[in-house]
């Protein structure tokens, strides 16, 4: 049983990091494109980028928390 819980904990954080990884890559790429196109707007773009990255980051963190909870049950 504890083996299954360990696999579940690993899967929780692994799967939870796929989506945000893709999303953050897309967001950061677009932000760099727009900074390259319009360097004078770099400050505003950076603020918006960090905010949106934090929202995506939260999804992985939820997975990580679940992983810790499961890990505590082993």
């Amino acid at each position, binding site marked *: 049983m504890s083996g299954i819980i360990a696999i579940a904990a690993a899967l929780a954080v692994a799967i939870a990091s796929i989506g945000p990884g893709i999303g953050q890559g897309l967001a950061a790429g677009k932000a760099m494109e727009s900074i390259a196109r319009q360097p004078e707007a770099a400050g*505003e773009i950076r*603020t918006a980028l960090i905010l949106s990255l*934090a929202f995506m*980051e939260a999804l992985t963190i*939820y997975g*990580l*928390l679940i992983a810790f*909870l499961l*890990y*505590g049950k082993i």
Partner: protein
Amino acid sequence: MFFATPAYAAEAAEHGAEHSQALFSIFGLQVSSVVTTMWGLMVLIILFSYLATKRMNKVPESRLQNFLEFVLESILELLTPIMGDEKLAKRYFPLLASFFILILASNYAGLLPGAGHLPGLQAPTSTLSVTAGFAVVVFFATHYYGLKTKGIKYFKHFVQPFPFLLPLNIIEEFVRPLSLSLRLYGNVFGEEMVVASLFALIPLFLPIPMMLLGILFGLVQAFVFTMLATLYISMATAEQH
């Protein structure tokens, strides 16, 4: 075993949020190392602010006053574009800047040598209770400022854009503090756990990159928390669009 974490981390994983043991108790209230660290930070910040503003000059002469003005002005510059207007940003500045400074200090307290191992020293934001406390303050402040600026018309935004979205809007209001607190707690606690497990693998040099990342994450998370609080307050107090 990879997760051969030190005792406190294993304890943390077992008990989830409440992973700090009580050091002593005052009037039946248990005081854990998180609370004592918070007291220490409070003393430091209050003492610093007092010393920096003791002899205030219009043109700052003391270094402390110079530094404090620089910090506060940088925070104000960050808040202004979200609030849209420097006057508005200044109105909510005391609450939001306090959040930023306190969360930043709390995050960095976890990077002090011995934090988490020594009794009485642990990053306050690595417990859910502390971050949930911050988030609850943001929750009530948002509605208080919304009601104060707009009066009874404030409740109209619950039925916009369509009345049948009312349940969703109410759920959204309660998800905000949840996600705010979980994000901060998860980041600081997760970083601590990763450092602990790297330390258990190879104690020498291996945890250093992660701790360097921890410096960056501590700043970013304090920034993000403040930004989101600002965003919520500015959305609650904004005129109708």
